[in-house]
């Protein structure tokens, strides 16, 4: 009858497989086919180079604000291969690496980044959600779309990406709680890159880990070395299996770091030390994975050089394609499209007025 301990449903664990020194826990090493590993590495490299190109294009004034992925590639390219195409993918706004894995054409991403809605089009039948700019607001959607899978008795599952900062929002909470109650087949993948713009992780929440927030929802949770692509894969595969088997959601916190600026509108020198960045540059997931690939003789230095060349060409071509796509786009009157399934008369009238004014000005 006195003060007694309550035993919780789950405990919090930390997972690391391939550490920063290249040490590998072979017991835990996931079984990934060579081809798949190859594709993972190539996508990681491509997304890093694409990120660099986006930055250049932005600095040249050719595209607008965007959020670089640099440093977080292992979270995205580690988790996505654990999903099927028919599984649902819900990005926040920094998931370009994951989007590339899902097959979003680089050229379309560039059209979007250049400020045209058309670049954000989602192909019919794709199980990809559009980019979600409002922090955490995409998280409830994952529970909703997963519900559609449950309802239809499909074994598709959903993965939703969000940042450390997003865990402070009510949307995160309500979604996680619903997922617990509904037993939703969802992988909640938090990329804890230690910053929400200028707010460091320890000022965002007093909880020791973000993973443990899962406990509040009776949800299994795991903290992972997010720069360790093997650990991220293993953690996601486990969560996906749980979800697919009808055993409900999982909260995964990937510890990583935003090596670059928050977005191109941001100046991190205002709020963080270069030393911290340098420390994390040594933990860069790309060379770590590259060493593993080379060590396992899945890649040679020559292969990588060739890959770099191909990737450069691919990105050059994508920009060319984007430029010609942009040229072929409709005029600004397309802004009246897709607001409703059928444009109501008052809106058609507004569109006509717009066109008349433009014609008059041009004529």
């Amino acid at each position, binding site marked *: 009858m006195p003060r007694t301990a309550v035993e919780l449903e789950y405990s919090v664990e930390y997972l690391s497989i391939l550490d920063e020194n290249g040490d590998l826990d072979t017991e835990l090493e996931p079984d990934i086919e060579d081809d798949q590993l190859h594709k993972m590495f190539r996508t990681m490299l491509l997304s890093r180079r694409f990120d660099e190109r986006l930055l250049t294009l932005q600095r040249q004034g050719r595209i607008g604000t965007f959020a670089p992925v640099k440093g977080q590639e292992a979270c995205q390219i580690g988790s996505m291969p654990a999903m099927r195409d028919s599984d649902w993918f819900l990005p926040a706004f920094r998931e370009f690496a994951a989007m590339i894995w899902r097959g979003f054409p680089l050229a379309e991403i560039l059209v979007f980044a250049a400020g045209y809605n058309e670049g954000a089009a989602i192909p019919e039948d794709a199980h990809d959600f559009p980019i979600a700019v409002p922090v955490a607001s995409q998280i409830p959607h994952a529970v909703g779309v997963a519900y559609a899978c449950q309802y239809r008795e499909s074994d598709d599952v959903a993965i939703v990406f969000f940042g450390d900062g997003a865990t402070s929002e009510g949307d995160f909470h309500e979604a996680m709680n619903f997922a617990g109650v509904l037993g939703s087949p969802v992988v909640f993948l938090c990329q804890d890159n230690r910053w929400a713009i200028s707010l460091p992780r320890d000022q965002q929440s007093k909880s020791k880990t973000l993973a443990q927030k899962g406990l509040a929802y009776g949800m299994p949770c795991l903290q992972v070395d997010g720069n360790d692509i093997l650990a991220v894969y293993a953690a996601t595969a486990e969560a996906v299996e749980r979800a697919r088997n009808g055993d409900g959601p999982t909260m995964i916190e990937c510890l990583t770091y935003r090596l670059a600026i928050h977005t191109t509108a941001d100046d991190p020198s205002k709020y963080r030390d270069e030393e911290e960045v340098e420390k994390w540059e040594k933990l860069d997931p790309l060379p770590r994975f590259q060493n593993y690939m080379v060590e396992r003789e899945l890649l040679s230095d020559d292969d990588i050089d060739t890959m770099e060349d191909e990737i450069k060409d691919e990105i050059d071509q994508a920009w060319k394609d984007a430029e010609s796509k942009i040229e072929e786009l409709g005029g600004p009157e397309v802004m009246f499209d897709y*607001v409703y399934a059928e444009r109501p008369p008052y809106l058609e009238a507004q569109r006509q007025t717009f066109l008349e004014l433009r014609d008059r000005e041009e004529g």
Partner: protein
Amino acid sequence: MAELNMVDAINRALFEEMENDDNIIVLGEDVGVDGGVFRVTDGLLEKYGEKRVIDTPVAETGITGLCVGMAAGGLRPVPELQFSGFSYMGLHQLEMHAARFRWRSRGRYAMPITVRIPYGAGVHALEHHSDSKEVLYAHIPGLKMVIPSGPRNARALLLAAIRDPDPVVFFEPKAAYRAFREEVPDEEETLPLGQSETAREGDDLTLIAYGAMLHRALQAADTLSEEDGVEADVIDLLSLSPLDHERFAESARRTGRVVIVHEAHRSYGPAGEIIARLIEESFWYLEAPIRRVTGYDIHVPYFAREQAYLPDASRIVDAARAVLND
């Protein structure tokens, strides 16, 4: 033909359409076992089971946010937010996502969501339970906004709203829930969204109203007829968005004199848009300034005084006489 009150008529529409379309999921606080705090969803759980009728946690953002995902996954959610005064907690998901997904994805994701929300004063409820801020939804592009006034049009509009491929905010006037019964045809009946109706014909004056206020406008019209020999054309808007400006324009051009009634607050309330439309399109036909009879720019007082907040027939008659004398 059955004589139904509005609660039963809406309930009937939910049964009908859930029967037609198994993509429909009803969800919300107390909508299942309890049948909804107003009993609007009564019986649905028993008939369609827990997978289609979900009693959710008290979490408005979760409810609206889930609906976005459900709709993207091909379902047709019909959430209930228990009172419009609490709906602001979930508003951002409608503004940020439900209203934009079709547009953002360039047609990939339709959002056939019908958000049912009881609204309005007059039922002796606690604070926040009498709110009428429909403008907060009517102003958002990508949403539609419908407000029935009686059992028959509530049923017909709800069917149309659920079938509509775009998100509809469906405000249900609580004060009209059990106020009267009406014949509701057995056969299916829908009404197009964005189309108003003439609730009473007349050539001397145009009264524009919707929701529970329609009935006060009709009362006023009777008084005007009896006491002043003035015949008012009474228009029931039914949809705020899209707004059917043609019917009221026609009426205003005919009568030259217009009074608009709503229980929403006056400033930046719905009447502003109607007046703007009338001025833009029918200015030269107006014989007197348009007047509005509205809720005041104050919080709805606690229930002992809520009727003082609401427009009533005598305020409407008063405004009508002023317009007639202008």
